[in-house]
């Protein structure tokens, strides 16, 4: 027994020593990597600056035109439909790309037209003055609700059914796109909300990338969910969190 243990220890040392000579790293190309890092940081910062300028529709004509059209639909719906309290919307499987686009391009407050009705105008003004009713906050709230439903279905174990898993992965991809849009939106500056969305992004990527029967992948997802307390944070992300920074 002791001999076997000693043998294992010597073997482990031998493997570790030999492994150190495998994939022996060359010197890090510090300057080249630093330049690349700086270039990527600058590139990442640029779209935010462009979108936040008044000329954004000119810079991104297709995005702007699409958003303007969608925004009109949103405004019509909000002006002539009943005023709703900001309760979480019922989640659906597909991502609300249209409303997301509108919310991200629209100014959070103050750019919507005033309805002709006085009562509507009053309600509209009240809503506009409350960041919790901003398009960004509303879309984010709906988005988080959908993600919560998705994670609940994952917890309910979709792994056994391949068709269900495909649907699940497709929904996760759509939600991932929306999550990235919300993170990149110039209106979404709040640190806590960005952290929530970033953690969400990580878990969605893990869910999308997991193999069908890889226990390691499922364990990684479970670990990420556990470490980030994501589901509890999704449910506790109230209007205050969603309104900040818009």
């Amino acid at each position: 027994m002791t001999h076997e243990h000693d043998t294992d220890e010597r073997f482990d040392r031998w493997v570790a020593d030999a492994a150190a000579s495998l994939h022996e790293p060359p010197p890090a190309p510090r300057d080249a990597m630093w330049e690349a890092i700086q270039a990527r940081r600058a590139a990442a910062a640029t779209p935010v600056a462009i979108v936040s300028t008044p000329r954004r529709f000119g810079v991104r004509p297709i995005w702007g035109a699409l958003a303007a059209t969608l925004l009109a639909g949103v405004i019509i719906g909000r002006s002539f439909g009943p005023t709703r309290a900001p309760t979480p919307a019922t989640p659906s499987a597909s991502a609300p790309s249209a409303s997301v686009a509108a919310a991200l391009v629209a100014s959070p407050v103050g750019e919507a037209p005033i309805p002709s009705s006085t009562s509507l105008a009053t309600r509209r003004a009240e809503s506009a003055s409350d960041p919790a009713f901003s398009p960004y906050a509303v879309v984010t709230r709906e988005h988080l609700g959908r993600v919560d439903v998705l994670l609940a279905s994952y917890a309910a174990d979709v792994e056994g059914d391949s068709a269900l898993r495909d649907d699940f992965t497709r929904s996760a991809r759509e939600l991932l796109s929306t999550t990235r849009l919300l993170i990149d939106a110039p209106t979404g500056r709040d640190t806590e909300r960005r952290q929530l969305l970033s953690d969400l992004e990580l878990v969605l990527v893990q869910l999308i990338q997991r193999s069908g029967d890889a226990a390691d992948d499922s364990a990684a997802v479970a670990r990420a969910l556990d470490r980030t307390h994501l589901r509890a944070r999704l449910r506790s992300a109230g209007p205050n969190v969603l309104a900040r920074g818009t």
Partner: protein
Amino acid sequence: MDDAALIDRVRLQDPRAERAFYERHVDRIHRLAYRMTGDEALAREYTQDTFVRAFDKLSEFRADSALSTWLHAIAVSVILNGLRKVKRIHGREQGMDELPEVAITARESEPDLKQRMREAIDALPDGYRMVFVMHDVEGFTHEEIGSALGIQPGTSKAQLFRARGKLRAALHEFAGEWQ
């Protein structure tokens, strides 16, 4: 300058502090990325990804762990996610071309034992391999590995134990060459 002071200055977007932060940690991150990938281009890409993310998230660093631990957690996430993508792409490519040219070259130029060891290490599941490389090759403690991987130190030990067991099984026929 200690980590706390450096972070304060980085948060103020002081370019010199940003470069100092990078210089302080880049070698270790690059070494880990290279050890895990064995590929210069991937190691550079993952190192760059790590620092881009770190600069982006530095405002969220709460100092409840060492800065290097926090940075390595980002690096581990970047590397493991990156390797998954590479494996998926590699799997598709292998479907078209049974044996990659690079593997043929390596097989011809290296002794059998060394090649088998490389293959055995590369064949470890990514999680096990990360623990093995971090602990046995790069000298991280189980506490550091646990923090970086988001697991308990005991889990790190267990994974290292299993990794070594798999290596022993894969290389048992070479027993006479190392005893």
